[in-house]
């Protein structure tokens, strides 16, 4: 409400030098203001967008109004006049909107959003340079002013006079006009969050106020303290007025008047004034208590206090208060105060422990208070949350990490001891530590909604800018993840959202053409799964056109024509992650500013996450980001070399290859001294960890262990002496002396108390020149590697008869298993085996493909011992075993179907390793053998494509 009467006390006094330039004392206030304002601005963005959806929502409007008002009031007080003027004009517009004088139009919303941006900009200037910066916002002010009349909005004539007049009128209004929206002192249910926030804030403020007032009495000349008090009271007053707490507002208002005069030096502080101010603080506190419990200000009469405060505004009045009734007046005041205090204390006590004084309490405070007692057990709002420095949490986290390690060590010793009480204690320690770890982790967890809250604004601005209609939906806002991760994914997510709006969702006309709803939907979904956080960004736009991607990739020399021809659709779609790629046909101000999807992917991978894109042409695009819950503890593979252990983060790990004896000598080949290994037909560069770390090799071992790693889209094999196990490790940073070594990213303490260094796979790759220093070269290579992988498929070759060959893509195979014939059981007509605690039906491929005539009678002879080779195919959680005669090989080949299908169950014929090979149609085979097995048309399509 009354933006008007806040004006007067707030208006900065340019003659008051102590305010306009900020001394060190103001630093703290300014910082607090900045923190508060940034939070408020984020809220504001969201509120404004919400408001646009629902222009009639008075609660949102009120919330916005209040936020701007708070910012304005504080700036005025601190002396940020430019910021204040921007906020002021915005507040005026908002006031009119709230009072229903004006309607919210897109132009107005945009102007208000622009104002929020301007404020944010100024705040960051203040943060960096301690001043508001030199940007001229008069254009914005003018626009906002113009938008205050419907004519102005339409005609774009700036009726400056109008505003001035308005201001004049407003300043004249001394008495708080009744709040049109909230005529009753009872607080609307919808206001609850605002009120709670107000209460928490005010309680904090009041505690400081008490202290400040006492300090002020000691040092009456201290303008800094006075200013701080003034500001606090002003904030409380402003907020109450807005929420509709008129009684509270009045008390605060007279107090503020008195403080204003004290601050300006018109009056001097003396004991009666201090007492009266303290009494005011008590009264405010008491009312806040009532508000917290009953949602109204209580029915205590504060008119005497108001009166006293009013009298104290003049020195004469002060003398009257102090002298004319030296014994009676202050005494009366005092008398009244303790009473109130008792009442307040009483209530507080009751809240904690109900007592027999209840009846008396009700009698004293009226029936209405009876409701209080129902809430007395609940914790006060101010007690339910505290602010904690993130550094303290980090330290706590470190300590817990150490405790976990100590626990692990104790648990290792425990079984060796026969002392049962020691074992019991260590188990107890184990449990407590685990819970403590979880608890501390939780303190660092934040709901992802914190960063999503700015997306409605982003989407709204974007859709306006590009002329699209986009509705943003969010699911799983409450999904929590580590604060550091939240920060890390903020920018990548914003970029993805921007991309989806800009490129993903089509223009309304096109959407209508394609028979879709005019309004596009962008869905953000977050959920926990398998110890990871999944974030999906799903749009129902046009999807990604592989042909378009191909064209652009060619024109930008990301790939060569040859590569392009060999790439499949999915590989083409994945090209949007390649460096130097931007699909925007023209660079809009929305995207295409050089931060491409490659950066998004790099940033996500940096924190151990992955990003996958799925495009359904015509239907939309889904981006799935998976990130770990926390960075502090990661799974890692422990390897040994030269007697020391090293940890390799699991995210970098692809597979392990062990070559024994003869094979080891044979299969590692050299190209100009560079060792390579043929991994399924592809050359895998090998790096010896000993060489990379310049460790003297002790002896040539028999076997070679290759850890296949990927870094920056390249694969390489790390040759190590031994491979131990995977473990969850607590990552600890290296000291400054060792930071320069790129091969290590940190260290960890193992279960036995010894240390292991964590290998930085990226650094190692660069060090060993696996990743080329020349960006262009590596790009082309990366693309070609992708291209190769693209058209080439890894195929599993198997046979059904003595000399035939069939193939299925390895990606379709879940596992290869051997079963003894004796393990096969019957379930109805179906042969089944027990497999991993489930019953898996068996399909005899030979029978299906070659017909029943060719019964397998010979194998029955030595039924008990003979092993059956089976290919386990899993779909939608169900498995089926395809029984084949023999497994031949796994090869990587470029697949070109030479001949179409000539019989059921076969997709076509291809040539693999110069041999004619039938490509199995696994879905149809499974479907024909077991019709109940769900067949997904999409994967059939995928197969056909192959």
């Amino acid at each position, binding site marked *: 409400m009354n933006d008007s009467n806040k004006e007067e006390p707030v208006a900065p006094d340019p003659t008051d030098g102590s305010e306009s330039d900020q001394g060190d004392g103001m630093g703290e206030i300014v910082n607090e203001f900045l923190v508060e304002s940034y939070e408020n601005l984020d809220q504001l963005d969201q509120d404004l967008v919400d408001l646009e959806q629902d222009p009639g929502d008075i609660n949102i409007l009120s919330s916005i109004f209040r936020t701007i008002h708070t910012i304005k009031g504080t700036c005025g007080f601190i002396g940020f006049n430019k910021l204040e003027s921007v906020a002021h004009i915005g507040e005026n517009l908002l006031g009119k909107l709230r009072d229903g004088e004006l309607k919210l139009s897109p132009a107005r919303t945009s102007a208000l959003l622009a104002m929020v941006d301007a404020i944010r900009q100024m705040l960051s200037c203040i943060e960096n340079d301690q001043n508001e910066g030199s940007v001229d916002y008069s254009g914005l002010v003018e626009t906002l002013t113009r938008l205050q009349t419907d004519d102005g909005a339409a005609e774009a004539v700036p009726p400056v006079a109008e505003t001035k007049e308005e201001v004049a009128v407003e300043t004249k209004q001394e008495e708080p006009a009744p709040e049109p929206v909230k005529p009753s002192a009872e607080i609307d249910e919808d206001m609850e969050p605002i009120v709670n926030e107000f209460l928490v804030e005010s309680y904090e403020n009041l505690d400081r106020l008490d202290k400040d007032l006492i300090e002020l009495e000691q040092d009456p000349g201290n303008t800094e303290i006075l200013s701080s008090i003034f500001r606090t009271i002003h904030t409380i007053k402003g907020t109450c007025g807005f929420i509709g707490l008129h009684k509270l507002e009045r008390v605060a208002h007279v107090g503020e008047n008195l403080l204003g005069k004290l601050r300006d030096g018109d009056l001097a502080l003396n004991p009666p004034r201090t007492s009266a101010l303290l009494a005011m603080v008590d009264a405010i506190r008491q009312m806040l208590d009532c508000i917290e419990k009953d949602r109204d200000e209580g029915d205590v009469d504060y008119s005497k206090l108001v009166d006293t405060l009013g009298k104290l505004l003049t020195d004469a009045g002060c003398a009257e208060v102090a002298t004319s009734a030296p014994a009676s007046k202050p005494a009366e005041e005092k008398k009244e105060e303790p009473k109130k205090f008792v009442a307040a204390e009483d209530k507080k006590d009751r809240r904690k422990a109900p007592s027999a004084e209840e009846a008396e309490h009700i009698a004293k405070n009226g029936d209405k208070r009876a409701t209080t007692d129902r809430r007395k057990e609940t914790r006060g709002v101010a007690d339910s949350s505290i602010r904690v420095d993130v550094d303290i949490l980090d330290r706590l986290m470190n300590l817990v990490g150490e405790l976990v390690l100590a626990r692990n060590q104790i648990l290792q010793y425990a079984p060796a001891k026969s002392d049962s009480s020691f074992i019991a204690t260590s188990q107890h320690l184990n449990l407590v530590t685990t819970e403590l770890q979880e608890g501390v982790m939780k303190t660092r967890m934040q709901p992802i909604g914190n960063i999503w809250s700015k997306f409605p604004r982003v989407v709204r601005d974007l859709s306006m800018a590009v002329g699209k209609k986009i509705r943003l939906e969010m699911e799983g806002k409450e999904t929590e993840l580590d604060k550091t991760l939240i920060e890390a994914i903020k920018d990548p997510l914003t970029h993805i959202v921007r991309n989806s709006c800009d490129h993903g969702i089509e223009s309304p006309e096109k959407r209508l053409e394609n028979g879709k709803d005019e309004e596009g939907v962008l869905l953000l979904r977050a959920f926990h799964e398998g110890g990871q956080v999944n974030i999906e960004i799903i749009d129902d736009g046009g999807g990604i056109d592989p042909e378009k991607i191909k064209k652009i990739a060619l024109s930008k020399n990301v790939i060569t024509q040859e590569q392009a021809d060999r790439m499949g659709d999915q590989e083409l779609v994945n090209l949007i992650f390649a460096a130097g790629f931007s699909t925007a046909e023209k660079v809009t101000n929305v995207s295409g500013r050089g931060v491409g999807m490659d950066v998004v992917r790099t940033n996500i991978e940096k924190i151990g996450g992955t990003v996958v894109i799925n495009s359904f042409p015509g239907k939309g695009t889904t981006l799935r980001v998976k990130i770990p819950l926390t960075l502090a503890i990661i799974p890692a593979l422990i390897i040994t070399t030269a007697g020391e252990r090293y940890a390799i983060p699991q995210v970098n790990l692809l597979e392990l290859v062990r070559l024994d004896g003869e094979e080891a000598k044979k299969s590692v080949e050299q190209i100009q001294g560079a060792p390579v290994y043929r991994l399924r037909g592809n050359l895998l560069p090998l790096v010896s960890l000993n060489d990379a*770390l310049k460790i003297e090799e002790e002896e040539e071992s028999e076997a070679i262990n290759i850890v296949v790693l990927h870094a920056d889209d390249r694969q390489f094999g790390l040759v190590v002496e031994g491979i131990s196990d995977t473990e969850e490790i607590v990552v600890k940073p290296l000291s400054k*002396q060792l930071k*320069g070594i790129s091969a290590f990213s940190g260290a960890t303490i193992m279960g036995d108390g010894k240390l292991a260094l964590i290998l930085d796979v990226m650094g190692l790759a660069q060090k060993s020149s696996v990743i080329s220093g020349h960006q262009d070269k590596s790009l082309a290579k990366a693309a070609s590697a992708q291209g190769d992988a693209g058209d080439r498929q890894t195929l599993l070759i198997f046979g059904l008869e003595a000399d035939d060959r069939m193939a299925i893509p390895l990606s379709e195979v879940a596992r290869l298993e051997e079963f003894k014939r004796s393990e096969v059981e019957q379930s109805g007509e179906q042969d089944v085996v027990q497999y991993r605690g489930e019953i898996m039906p068996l399909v005899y491929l030979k029978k299906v493909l070659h017909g029943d005539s060719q019964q397998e009678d010979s194998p029955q002879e030595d039924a008990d011992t003979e092993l059956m080779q089976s290919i386990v195919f899993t779909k939608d959680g169900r498995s089926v075993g395809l029984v084949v005669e023999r497994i031949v090989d796994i090869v990587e080949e470029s697949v070109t179907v030479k001949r179409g299908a000539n019989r059921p169950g076969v997709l076509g014929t291809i040539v693999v390793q110069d041999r004619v090979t039938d490509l199995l149609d696994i879905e149809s085979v499974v479907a024909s053998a077991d019709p109940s097995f769900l067949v997904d048309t999409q994967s059939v399509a995928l197969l056909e494509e192959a």
Partner: protein
Amino acid sequence: MTEQKQFCTFYLDNHMFGVKVEQVQEVFRYQAMTKVPLAPPEVRGLINLRGQIITALDLRRRLGMEVRSEDKLPMNVVVRTEDGVVSLLVDEIGDVLEVSEDVHERPPETVPEGVRKLVLGVYKLEGKLLLILDSEKAVDVGHAVA
């Protein structure tokens, strides 16, 4: 009365060194270290100090002195610096000495460069000299590593 300062002393190649007592976190016997390949030569390894990973620097190497013979195990002097906690490997631990400022002097120019730039000053005690180590500079190694 002149100002008194307390130093934790230790020996390196028969020289007595000292660091301000308030910089020293603790002193402990030799403990097995985890070697760090590729690290600067001064870095002898990493030590697990009650769950905290600290770097151990060989002060002899840092000061350009003769390398300690293999059979002698060094002692750890753990100092707190701006760059975190670092362990300095020394030959032997001495007493905590209280010395007065008036026997303090700048290290003479003739002292070898490698030592001089890490020494804040010299206290002329009876029968021996106490060299005060600039621990901040002493732990400042490892920038040149690739």
